[in-house]
């Protein structure tokens, strides 16, 4: 119980890392799935989680993580009922800008690299509502009225690069320089999954979505089984967008959330965690 298991939440800005973390904490307290992980108690300092929870419980978007120190740990105590194992999970809740900076500035904090060596698994977040590619120019764009066209093309900047390109690079940095265990377990979390399909009529498999929409990332993971093992999830950690807020608040917070694991819909947001820890 006392050896902490370290996890990493990796994702570019606005990919739902904090929202999932907050929802995961709530589900741990109020688990309804008999196979799911449950809370093993409260950690000493929960102020960060509690602060973010206020908005989330009200059905609102959780405020983006302000740039935090990489040493600031958020801690969850979890228990696996089946094996009666308890673990202390720690994860620095790092802002998406921290990762965007790695891509653009081509350097990382040595402390981050050192920490990677002890990481047991990584949650990799992408946003279902955001394209992995920078879309190619279309006729519709070219036919915009003259006044609506920009006068001058924007020069390429690293920060404007395609998101899947950035994410692949971040994983390349980890595999080449991170001295992590190999293969490293990655739970690919496609957030805002409610944008893709409704909980009541699920049709799309997250793996297929990744293959079609974030193909470069999908190929990279498939082509490197020696470096990474991965599983892909769709997650709605808020339950819906701003337009759905009125409906959302009719339900208890832990009832709003849902997760898509291959073809299966579940309320158990701890499932990716179980998979990362080999607690299935």
């Amino acid at each position, binding site marked *: 119980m006392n050896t902490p298991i370290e996890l990493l939440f990796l994702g570019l800005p606005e990919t739902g890392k904090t929202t999932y973390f907050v929802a995961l904490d709530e589900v741990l307290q109020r688990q309804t799935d008999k196979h799911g992980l449950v809370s093993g108690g409260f950690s000493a300092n929960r102020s960060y989680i509690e602060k973010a929870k206020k908005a989330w419980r009200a059905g609102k978007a959780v405020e983006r993580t302000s740039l935090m120190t990489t040493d600031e740990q958020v801690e969850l105590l979890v228990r696996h009922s089946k094996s009666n194992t308890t673990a202390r999970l720690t994860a620095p809740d790092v802002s998406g800008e921290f990762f965007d900076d790695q891509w653009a500035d081509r350097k990382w*904090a*040595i402390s981050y690299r050192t920490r990677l060596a002890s990481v047991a698994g990584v949650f990799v977040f992408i946003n279902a509502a955001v394209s992995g590619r920078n*879309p*190619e120019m279309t006729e519709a764009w070219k036919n915009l009225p003259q006044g609506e066209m920009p006068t001058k093309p924007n020069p390429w900047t690293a920060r404007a690069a*395609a998101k899947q*390109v950035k994410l692949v690079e971040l994983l390349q*940095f980890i595999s080449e320089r991170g001295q992590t265990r190999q293969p490293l377990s990655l739970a690919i979390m496609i957030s805002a999954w409610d944008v893709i399909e409704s909980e009541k009529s699920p049709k799309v498999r997250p793996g297929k979505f990744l293959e079609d929409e974030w*193909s470069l990332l999908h190929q990279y993971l498939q082509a490197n089984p020696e470096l990474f093992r991965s599983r892909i999830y769709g997650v709605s950690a808020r339950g819906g967008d701003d337009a759905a807020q009125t409906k959302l608040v009719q339900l208890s917070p832990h009832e709003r959330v849902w997760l898509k694991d291959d073809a299966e819909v579940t309320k158990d947001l701890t499932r990716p965690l179980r998979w990362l820890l080999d607690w299935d």
Partner: protein
Amino acid sequence: MPRCKLKNCPYDKDGRCVENQLPNCPNLLPDEIENPVAQEAKPLATETIRTSPQYEALYSGKKLTAVEATQILQSRPAQVVVLGGMVESGKTTLLARLFEMFQSKHVAGHRFAASRTLAEFDKLSWHATMECGAPDPKTERTDRSENNLFLHLRIRAEDGSVPTMDLLIGDIPGEIFPEAVAEERVCLDLCALRRADHLVLFLDGEVLCDAANRHDPCGKVSDFVFRALQTGQIGRHTILHLVISKCDKLPSDAGNEVLAFVEKTEKLFQTQFTNHFGSLHCWRVAARPVHPVEPTVAEISKIFGLWIGNSHQSAGTSAQMPQRLDFSRDFCRFGLSHKPL
């Protein structure tokens, strides 16, 4: 990019070495500390990592130098592809399309497995994206300072049956291409040619429609082959490709004079050079055609399939190669291995 420490050297401006010692000029300063990909003024969030002020550099994501490329060649199975042609003949656009294809799907039965030059690949397509905001899709020309630099791609067969393979892709800047025809010294400076498994030469389809101005680029392409054969940089160990780019600009009616000229050019190219190379292939592609024509992705997949599938490098030194170039093969074909890396 490496920089030259000599004040009188034009290397920083146009990639030429005043002492003619490229790519191993001892006056070049490495770019490890430089941060070439970061273009924006946004500061690193140092203030947010109060307890860990120490940073370490990661690789730049920019094109690889010949030395870096050689390190890959020495450590893994790899193919070297060199693209050449006049300015705006479609070399970079083909590469941009190839990466766009990988961003959407696997290509020629192979998955993207890694790249040391992802930032460069992303940059290739930038002027054809809506994010760029340009009125028309374009591809930025390869600057002459990018001569003897390489894009890197690692791929793996979809079924995972074979190990990963690396590709190093060099793009001879359009300004340098005719200079290499004119001056042997410039041609010999194209260090990638010696190790190229594939040499891909481009003719702009749009230019071929211009009866008066099409002869010079055709002549330049042939002359380039003659020049590089003469220097012994290419030969039976090389697979030669002729790509007619922007083929959407060619007339579609059979029997048209332009099409007849294109066919004649392809045939002449084959007649002149087939016997000098491992094999020779002619292609017609439209990597970024005008709407509503679709890009010729099937054709580009086939070209890529050949790049990763065929090599004549292990066939031994060509009998036609001059004696002076008969040094050990493969890794040293950039002419670097006799010097410590």
